[in-house]
């Protein structure tokens, strides 16, 4: 019999939590009304949608009236940034993005540059950390928005969002925080972070794909405008018939993920640290990218010198282990990671980065098996003469 697969790519997506599956099945079967309808079927759907909104708001320490369900985290990032820029009442608006943001933020920046909005990029240090003083240096007169992620998807660095937000607010800018990777892994409080706009996504916490949310704080509501136009759903902020089953699955997953957040974080941190130590001991030369300091408890990014990261990923896949070379959005593209580049790691380090990301279904045995499999996989890769050419 074939050994069960080991899934260590939770930062790409998480398997569905049973609680989310159950909530979605029940909703899909029985609660199919349109929440905008005034009849019983509609009211039932609306009630479930609002229950879900409240559950998500509670997890985010947020006001439920500010939760806007979207089709994805990417959509939420687009709405937050574009909506704030569109509503800026200044002649020449500028935005600040950190250099390590997800492509769904950085590529919005590219689009904005194309239409004449100036974008300033805040640099990070060798750990992927964007220090508040870097934000301060990057702010200019006319900066209307600062976007800094809560935790980085590739290396897991937890960014000092609260400190950066304080500086941005003093200078009159709104703060957007992409919290897609942190939700369910560390505490996310919009108040503690000082976020005016915040992005989350269901499938990273064991909910369904196809639903995310943007939070907009009361003080930001006059400084943001909708991007899509249609019906009055989501308080006129995001038209379109609501994905009620998705919202129910999202809420159930978030409840499960945050129920015992600290204990689960400790469990994952100890598994992650054991994996790091194990890899370092069985693969000479393997190095950690970024320290394990201010880091998501589930994320480990390591470089395996001399071997191409995509080859190592493929070899592990054939052995039943799913990992990623960085972000899952770059499948087939032989591009050095923009995050590791921003961390100014040497070419060799940018070469074979592998991201191991753990989650709710990861076990001790998974970690043991990966440590056991790696030496033979590495030996074969090295002996094949597959060299790493990643000078970009």
């Amino acid at each position: 019999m074939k050994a069960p697969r080991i899934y260590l790519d939770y930062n790409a997506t998480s398997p569905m939590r049973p609680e989310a599956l159950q909530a979605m099945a029940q909703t899909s079967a029985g609660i199919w009304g349109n929440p905008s309808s005034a009849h019983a079927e509609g009211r039932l759907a609306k009630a479930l949608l609002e229950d879900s909104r409240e559950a998500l708001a509670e997890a985010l320490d947020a006001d439920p009236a500010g939760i806007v369900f979207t089709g994805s985290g990417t959509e939420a990032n687009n709405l937050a940034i574009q909506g704030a820029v569109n509503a800026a009442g200044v002649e020449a608006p500028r935005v600040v993005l950190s250099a390590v943001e997800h492509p769904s933020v950085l590529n919005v920046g590219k689009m904005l540059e194309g239409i004449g909005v100036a974008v300033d990029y805040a640099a990070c240090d060798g750990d992927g950390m964007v220090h508040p003083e870097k934000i301060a240096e990057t702010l200019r007169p006319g900066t209307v928005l600062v976007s800094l992620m809560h935790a980085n998807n590739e290396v897991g660095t937890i960014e000092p969002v609260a400190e950066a937000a304080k500086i941005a607010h003093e200078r009159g800018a709104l703060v957007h925080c992409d919290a897609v990777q942190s939700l369910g892994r560390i505490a996310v409080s919009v108040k503690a972070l000082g976020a005016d706009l915040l992005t989350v996504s269901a499938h990273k916490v064991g909910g369904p794909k196809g639903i995310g949310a943007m939070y907009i704080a009361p003080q930001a509501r006059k400084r943001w405008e909708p991007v899509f136009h249609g019906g009055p759903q989501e308080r006129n902020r995001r038209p379109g018939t609501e994905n009620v089953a998705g919202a129910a699955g999202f809420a159930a997953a978030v409840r499960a993920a945050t129920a015992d957040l600290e204990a689960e974080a400790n469990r994952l941190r100890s598994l992650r640290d054991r994996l790091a130590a194990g890899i370092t001991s069985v693969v000479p030369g393997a190095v950690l990218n970024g320290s394990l300091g201010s880091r998501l408890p589930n994320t480990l990014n390591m470089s395996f010198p001399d071997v191409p990261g995509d080859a190592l990923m493929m070899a592990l896949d054939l052995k039943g282990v799913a990992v990623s070379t960085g972000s899952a959005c770059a499948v087939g593209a032989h591009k050095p990671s923009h995050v590791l580049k921003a961390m100014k790691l040497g070419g060799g380090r940018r070469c074979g980065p592998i991201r191991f990301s753990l989650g709710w279904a990861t076990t001790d045995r998974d970690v043991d098996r990966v440590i056991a499999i790696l030496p033979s996989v590495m030996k074969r890769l090295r002996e094949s003469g597959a060299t790493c050419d990643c000078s970009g």
Partner: protein
Amino acid sequence: MACTHVGVAMSGGVDSSVAALLLKEQGCEVFGLTAKTWPEGSRCCSDEDVRSARRVCDALGIPHYVVDLSEPFERHVVAYFEEEYLSGRTPSPCARCNRHIKFGELMQRALAIGADAMATGHYARTERTTGGRIRLMRSADRGKDQTYFLFDLSQEQLARSVFPVGDMAKQEVIGHARKAGLPVHDRPESQDLCFVAEGEHAALIEKRSPGRVAPGDISDPAGRLLGRHGGIHRFTLGQRRGLGVAAMAPLYVAALDRATATVVLGPRESLMRREAVVSGVRWTSGRVPSGSERCEAKVRYRQDAAAAEVKPLGTDAAELRFDEPQFAITPGQIAAFYTGDELLGGGWIEKAVE
């Protein structure tokens, strides 16, 4: 061979798809690999081909990976292709790709990630001698035989190669794909190169290197001016069409002079040659003739092999002498030498000799 774990180089076409299918039917552990070789939108190795290969692997229930080889492909194949045309030679990029890309980088990747061998959809066969030598043999379907383009594979590369459709006729391959319900599109068979459509190679070179393209004269063998042309890279030896010159009798490109950028035209007879000097010779068979040896040789892909004699010159060159004169033995093309069905060796034509 007793197969265990095989990577299949998949183009999305029917031959490599059936290769994967046959190996799977034999009980091998199989995965698919597709090289992304050309960054711009092009016919082959395009996103469409990658998708097609992936769909075949989905149907077979095997893993599929994409390997970005656009950088080495540019270096080994496209740059070479351009250089040859600009030198007045006619390149044969498929052989370069096979040596450096498919059976080079891609095979290395297949072996690195766990395969014991790599299979392709080429029409060719291999046999292992008792002495451990690998003989590269013409395919069962003679009309489809592709050993000509495989001449530059080393014994090490051949030892790791599997050609599952080499024993089959093209029609059988298509029938097998249909029977298995593989999502193989009935794409028109084409003689085009994968990275440039027929008739568009000149435009590609002009776009890549506008500064290196020089117009020149078209003359007859006596040096009389017949017209002007836009660059010798637009011509190939033996070419008859598209010369832009009106003449009583048919005229062919008889010579391309890089130094003066002159295209010399002549009648068909002026292109008949019996001998050729061949460089970069690989004795594919692993066996170097001790002196002159009888063989059958081909100087272009679409040609029946003709009786000839081949003689090694030093370590990596050879002299080829046909029994009968051949038309337009073209510098840059491959000369392949066969002993029976076995490919003895091959090399790159340097020049034809009177």
